[in-house]
C-alpha cells in the first residue's frame, strides 16, 4: 500500500510555507475532526512535524512540541491524537477504509519524532479499492472493470475455448438436429400438395410417406441422443476442472484468506455454483443454443417462402424483446436473492451440526429448530414468490407469442383461397410459425439461464481470483534447516492497524526449548503462527538459520516443522493415516515408535482395529487426551527440526502428561522447541522462558533468572503455587 500519496501543488506550497519540508508520509482521511465525511483531505508527516489537510485547511504540529502521536483504534474508525505536555488532543479521524494506511503513517511519524529519519514504515496490505475507479479489488491487484479482461461471459467463452473440439461436435449435432427438424415439415408439405390435395394419392403413397417420416424421426432421435451425450460430457468435464481449480486454490490460499469466508459459503461455491455452470452447459446450452440455429434457419426459409406472411409473424418479436428486457433485471434480482437465502440456510445447518453437542447439552433443540424453520421459511417464501412470478410471466409470454400463429392462419388462409399459396405450403408455414415460438420462447429462458450461470461463475472466480496473502518467492530455497530462529523487530496484526505483536525481538538457538507464557490474547499463539509461516510479518523479519523465512520454499519448510495444537483435529480416516499425515513414507515401525513416544501405542492397541481403527467425524470416538497423543505422534513422526507445542499436553491426565513430557524431553534434543503452556510446571525443562505481555516480550530468561527478577513471571509462579496450596487445603 502506497503511504506517500502526492499532494496537489496548492497544498504542497501551503505545507512548505509552514515547514519548508516535503511529505515523507501522506495518506487520505475521509472524516473531519467533527466526524463529517470529507474528500480531498490528507494526514501525513514531514521530517519536522505532522500535518492534516482538511480540504484546504492546514493543521501542522512540529515534532519539537509533541511527545507522542497515538493511533486510537475505535470500533468503526480511527482517531489520531497527539500528546502535548502529558495531555492528549484529537488530531485527525478516518473511517475503517483508511485505518490501515493511517496506522502505518502514525508509526512512521513516531519514528520521525524519535529522530529515526532514515527508517521508513511500509504497509504490506493490498489495496482494497481500485485507485482509478474506486471499485473493490477482490484480493487481486487487478480491477475487474479497469483491466477490461473481466466479465463473466468472457470467462464462459474461455471455458468453451478450452473444450473447443467437444463444442464443435455438439454444434455439428445441433446443425443436424435443425436440418432434420425443418425437413419433416417440408416432407409433409410435398405429401399434402402432391398426393392429398390433388386427390391422386394411393395407399402405397401413404405407406411410403409413413416410412420416410418415421425414418426421419428415428434419425432425429439418434442425433438428439448424440447431442445430449456430448453436452452432458462437456458439463461433467467443466465441473470437474472448475472443482479441481477451486480445491487447488483453497490449498494455495493462506489462512488469512480462508478466515475471511465461512465454511458453508465456500462449500456452496465449490459444489453448488460449479453444478449450476455444468447444468447450464448440458441443459440450457445444448437446448437453447440449438433453438438459436432453429430460429435462424426458420426465419430464412419463411422469408424465402412468403416474405409478407413472414413479416406478419415476425412483427410480434419486438414486443417479446421489450417484454423480456423489462423483466430482465427482476429475473436477475430474483436469482441472486434466492441464492443468498440458500447460503443462509446452509450456514445455519453447518453451524447447528458442528455445535450439536452444545445444542443438546443446553436443551436448545427447540430454539435451533425455530431458527432453522425461520430461515427455511424465508427461503420457501422467496422461492414461492419467485415461482408465482414465473408462473404468471411465462403464460403471458406464450400468449403474446401465439398471436403470430392466429394471424398467419387468417392471412395464409386468404392466400390459399386466392391461389397464391398451396395448402401444403400453408401447413408448412403454420408449422414453422409454431416452431418459431419454441426458439423465441426458449430464448426468453436463456437470459435467466445465462444470468444464473454468470452469477455462479462470478462467485467461482471470486475465489479463484484471490491471491494468497502468504506468497512464495521466486527461487525459494528448499533445504534442511538446523533450527536457529531469529525475530527482528517483528510487528504483526491480523488486521494491520491493530498489531498483536509490536516490536518483538527474540534470538533462539537451534535445539533450544523456549517456553512461552502470558495471559490469553497476549500474542503467544500469534508468535508461533508466524514461526509456522501461516502469516507473514507486517514489519521486521523472522530468520531461520539466518535466512528470511519468506525466502524458504513453504512446502519444504513446513515439512520440517512438527505441530501439536491445543485443539486437535483428526481427519476422517484410520489412526494410521492420521499419524502418517506428516510423513506418508514412514514405515510401520517408525509409526509405532512415534506412537510409543507419544504414549499412544498402548491405547491404540486396545482399539478394535488397532492402527486401522477408523477415527474422525463418523469413526471411533476418542477422548481429548487420546486425540492429542495421536497428534503428538503425528508431529514427531517426520522428525521435525522445529517443534511447536501449543498447550499440547493440556488435555492429558497427570500420568499421561508426565510420560509425554518425558518423551518430549528426550525428543527435543537437536530440535528447536516452542512450547506454550498455562501450567508453568510443564515448562520446567525449558532452556528459557519468554513472557509475552502487552504485544511484546516483556521478560526472557531461565526459570531461576526470571524468579530472581521478581517480575511478571515471578507473580505468575507465585499465583499458581498459591492456587495449588489452596486446592490442596480444600
Amino acid at each position, binding site marked *: 500500500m502506497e503511504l506517500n500519496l502526492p499532494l496537489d501543488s496548492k497544498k504542497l506550497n501551503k505545507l512548505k510555507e509552514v515547514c519548508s519540508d516535503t511529505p515523507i508520509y501522506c495518506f487520505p482521511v475521509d*472524516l473531519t475532526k467533527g466526524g463529517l*465525511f470529507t474528500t480531498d483531505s490528507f494526514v501525513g508527516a514531514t521530517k519536522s512535524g505532522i500535518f492534516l489537510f482538511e480540504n484546504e485547511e492546514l493543521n501542522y504540529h512540529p515534532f519539537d512540541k509533541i511527545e507522542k502521536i497515538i493511533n486510537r483504534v*475505535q470500533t468503526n474508525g480511527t482517531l489520531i491524537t497527539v500528546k502535548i505536555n502529558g495531555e492528549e*488532543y484529537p488530531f485527525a479521524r478516518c*473511517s475503517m477504509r483508511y485505518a490501515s494506511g493511517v496506522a502505518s503513517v502514525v508509526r512512521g511519524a513516531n519514528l520521525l519524532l524519535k529522530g529515526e529519519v532514515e527508517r521508513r514504515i511500509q504497509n504490506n496490505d493490498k489495496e482494497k479499492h481500485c485507485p482509478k475507479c474506486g471499485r*473493490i479489488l477482490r484480493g487481486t491487484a487487478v480491477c475487474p472493470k479497469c483491466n477490461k479482461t473481466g466479465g463473466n461471459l468472457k470467462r464462459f467463452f474461455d471455458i468453451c475455448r478450452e473444450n473447443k473440439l467437444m463444442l464443435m461436435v455438439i454444434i455439428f449435432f445441433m446443425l443436424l438436429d435443425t436440418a432434420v427438424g425443418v425437413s419433416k415439415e417440408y416432407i409433409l408439405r410435398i405429401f399434402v400438395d402432391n398426393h392429398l390435395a390433388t386427390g391422386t394419392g394411393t395407399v402405397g403413397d401413404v405407406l411410403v410417406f409413413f416410412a420416410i417420416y418415421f425414418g426421419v424421426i428415428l434419425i432425429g432421435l439418434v442425433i438428439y441422443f448424440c447431442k445430449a451425450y456430448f453436452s452432458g460430457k462437456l458439463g461433467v468435464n467443466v465441473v470437474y476442472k472448475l472443482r479441481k481449480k477451486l480445491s487447488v486454490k483453497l490449498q494455495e490460499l493462506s489462512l488469512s484468506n480462508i478466515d475471511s469466508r465461512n465454511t458453508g*459459503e465456500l462449500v456452496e461455491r465449490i459444489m453448488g455454483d460449479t453444478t449450476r455452470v455444468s447444468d447450464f452447459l448440458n441443459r440450457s446450452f445444448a437446448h437453447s443454443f440449438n433453438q438459436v440455429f432453429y430460429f435462424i434457419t426458420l426465419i430464412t426459409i419463411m422469408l424465402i417462402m412468403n416474405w409478407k406472411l413472414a413479416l406478419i409473424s415476425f412483427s410480434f418479436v419486438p414486443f417479446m424483446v421489450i417484454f423480456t428486457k423489462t423483466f430482465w433485471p427482476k429475473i436477475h434480482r430474483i436469482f441472486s436473492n434466492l441464492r443468498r437465502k440458500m447460503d443462509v440456510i446452509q450456514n445455519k445447518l453447518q453451524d447447528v451440526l458442528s455445535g450439536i453437542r452444545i445444542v443438546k447439552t443446553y436443551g436448545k433443540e427447540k430454539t435451533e429448530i425455530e431458527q432453522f424453520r425461520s430461515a427455511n421459511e424465508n427461503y420457501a417464501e422467496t422461492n414461492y414468490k419467485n415461482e408465482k412470478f414465473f408462473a404468471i410471466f411465462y403464460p403471458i409470454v406464450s400468449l403474446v407469442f401465439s398471436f403470430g400463429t392466429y394471424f398467419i392462419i387468417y392471412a395464409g388462409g386468404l392466400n390459399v383461397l386466392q391461389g397464391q399459396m398451396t395448402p401444403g405450403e400453408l401447413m408448412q408455414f403454420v408449422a414453422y410459425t409454431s416452431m418459431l415460438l419454441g426458439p423465441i420462447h426458449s430464448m426468453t429462458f436463456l437470459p435467466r439461464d445465462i444470468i444464473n450461470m454468470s452469477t455462479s461463475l462470478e462467485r467461482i472466480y471470486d475465489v479463484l481470483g484471490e491471491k494468497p496473502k502468504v506468497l512464495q518467492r521466486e527461487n525459494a530455497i528448499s533445504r534442511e534447516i538446523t533450527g536457529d530462529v531469529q525475530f527482528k523487530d517483528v510487528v504483526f496484526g491480523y488486521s494491520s492497524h491493530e498489531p498483536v505483536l509490536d516490536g518483538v525481538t527474540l534470538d533462539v538457538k537451534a535445539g533450544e526449548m523456549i517456553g512461552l507464557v502470558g495471559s490469553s490474547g497476549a500474542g503467544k499463539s500469534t508468535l508461533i503462527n508466524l514461526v509456522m509461516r501461516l502469516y507473514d510479518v507486517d514489519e521486521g523479519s523472522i530468520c531461520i538459520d539466518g535466512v528470511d523465512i519468506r525466502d524458504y520454499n513453504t512446502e519444504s519448510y513446513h515439512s520440517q516443522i512438527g505441530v501439536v495444537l491445543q485443539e486437535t483435529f483428526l481427519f476422517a480416516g484410520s489412526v494410521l493415516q492420521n499419524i502418517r499425515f506428516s510423513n506418508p513414507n514412514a514405515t510401520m515401525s517408525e509409526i509405532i515408535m512415534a506412537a510409543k513416544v507419544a504414549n499412544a501405542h498402548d491405547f491404540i492397541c486396545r482399539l478394535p482395529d488397532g492402527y486401522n481403527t477408523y477415527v474422525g467425524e463418523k469413526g471411533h470416538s476418542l477422548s481429548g487426551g487420546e486425540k492429542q497423543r495421536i497428534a503428538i505422534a503425528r508431529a514427531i513422526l517426520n522428525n521435525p527440526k522445529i517443534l511447536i507445542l501449543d498447550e499440547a499436553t493440556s488435555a492429558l491426565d497427570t500420568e499421561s502428561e508426565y510420560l509425554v513430557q518425558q518423551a518430549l524431553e528426550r525428543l527435543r534434543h537437536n530440535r528447536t522447541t516452542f512450547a506454550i503452556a498455562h501450567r508453568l510446571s510443564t515448562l520446567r525443562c525449558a532452556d528459557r522462558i519468554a513472557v509475552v505481555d502487552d504485544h511484546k516480550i516483556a521478560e526472557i530468561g531461565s526459570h531461576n533468572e526470571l524468579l530472581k527478577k521478581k517480575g511478571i513471571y515471578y507473580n505468575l509462579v507465585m499465583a499458581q503455587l*498459591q492456587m495449588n496450596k489452596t486446592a490442596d487445603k480444600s
Partner: protein
Amino acid sequence: MEKDILELENQKVQKQLTINYLTEQNAQFYETKGGFVGLKIGNEDYGHVNLIRTFPFSAPWEFISVRRLDGKQEEIGIIDNLNNFDSSVFELISKQLEIRYFMPKITKIISISEEYGHAYWNVLTDKGKCSFATSAGASGAVTKNEDRVIIKDTDENRFEIEDVTKLTAKELKKLDLFL
C-alpha cells in the same frame, strides 16, 4: 512477599465477582483539556478514560464500561444508565461514544448498483454524502432487526438505517435485494 501476592490475587478475584456501578454520587466525569472524558472517583483521578458500550445495538446508553485508557484497559466501573446522569455529563460521554461507535445514519439511498460480486451504495447520511461497497456474496453484510437495518461495508464500517419504513417505495425496492 508470597502473602502480598495472594492478597493481590484475592483482590483480583473479588473485583472480578463484583460490578462497580458508577453513579453521579460516586463518580465525577469531567472534560480533559483535549476534550476527552476524564474520571475522578474520590481522590483518585484516572484522567482520560476509555468508554465501551457493552450492548452497542440493544442498549447503547446502558451498561457502559469505563476503562483505563492504556495497558490492559482494566475496567474501573460500569455506568448502568447514562440517562441517570446530568445532561452535561450525558453530552460529554455521548460525544466520546459517538467517536468510538461512528455509525452514520442513512437518510436517503441515492443508488445501489451491483457489479462483480459487490454492491456499490451511494447514500446521503447525517454525516454527509458517501459511497461504500458491500460484498454481495457474503452473508451478514446487511442485517435487519425489526425496522432497523445495519449495513457493514467491505472495510468493516457500519451504516444504519434507523427505520426502513421511513424510506420511500423506490428506496425500499433498491434495498429489498439485500434484505
